[in-house]
């Protein structure tokens, strides 16, 4: 197996999962987003989204904060520095893998 191909096995599996990849992609585009927005954009159910967010929070990739915007209660999610770095690294790895396969 070539080094390039071996790198595919080193992909961050936490992010590689499609639903979580979608969540971190959304969060990497913004400063922060609330639960409702993530739910609508990802199309996940409340329970599913909660479970994925908990996994990302446990890994230190996402910070979840209960707050208020005016009188509106919000569950705001934000990508941490570690999460941002993990997403960037994942995309770089995937890009180099894609380049390799399309050669």
């Amino acid at each position: 197996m070539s080094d390039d191909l071996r790198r595919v096995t080193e992909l961050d599996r936490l992010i590689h999962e499609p639903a979580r990849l979608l969540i971190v992609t959304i969060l990497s585009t913004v400063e922060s987003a609330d639960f409702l927005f993530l739910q609508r954009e990802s199309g996940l159910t409340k329970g599913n989204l909660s479970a994925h967010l908990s996994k990302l929070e446990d890994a230190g990739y996402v910070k979840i904060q209960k707050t208020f915007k005016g009188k509106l209660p919000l569950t705001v999610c934000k990508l941490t520095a570690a999460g941002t770095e993990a997403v960037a690294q994942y995309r770089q790895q995937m890009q180099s893998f894609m380049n390799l396969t399309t050669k």
Partner: protein
Amino acid sequence: MDDKLLDVEKRVKRYWYSDGIVELSLGGMFFLLGVYFGLQGYLGENSQASVIMQIGLFVIVFAGIVGVGWLVNTLKARITYPRTGYVEYRKDGQDIKKLKHIIMGVALAVAASSIVLFDFFRNLDSMTLATGVMVGAVFIALRGNSTGTTRFYVVGIFSILLGVVLSLDKLPQEYNLALFYGLLGVVIMVSGGIVLLGYLRENPMLAEDDNE
């Protein structure tokens, strides 16, 4: 796969404009600018009120920008966030940098073409033409391109055409600018209003515990 992720990123950026509130507020500000230039033209260059108004232009524009920001945030907190969720966008200056490049590029292009086509430009209201091209370029290159929102291309093209048409007439510059900002403001507000109506129809208010 990366294309799909790029689509997601564009969709998230587009969300800021999905309710038409930004356009309604921005269109309102443009319309007020049109009223301002119209009044200036009506009062005449040498009247005391016109001189005071000229000094006040900076204050009006600054207050307008702050006012639009406040209005957009207030309306979004009441209309958008309870319906489709809250998003805070990054203030990384990327858009401002892009905006500066676009304005500089268009200004240079207008200046260069006015030198090359001096005879042609002599008969035009170059201020209205430059305003139309610049505002149009900002709509097309900055908002349309980064979000993939078709209506921004339409507004951008309308702005350029309006600038060109008004620059050819023989009205005083103040009236041309008044017509430009007034008409563009109305078009942007109508576009925002239609988008807002569609948004409200598609997204009824959720029960309170839906955002937990």
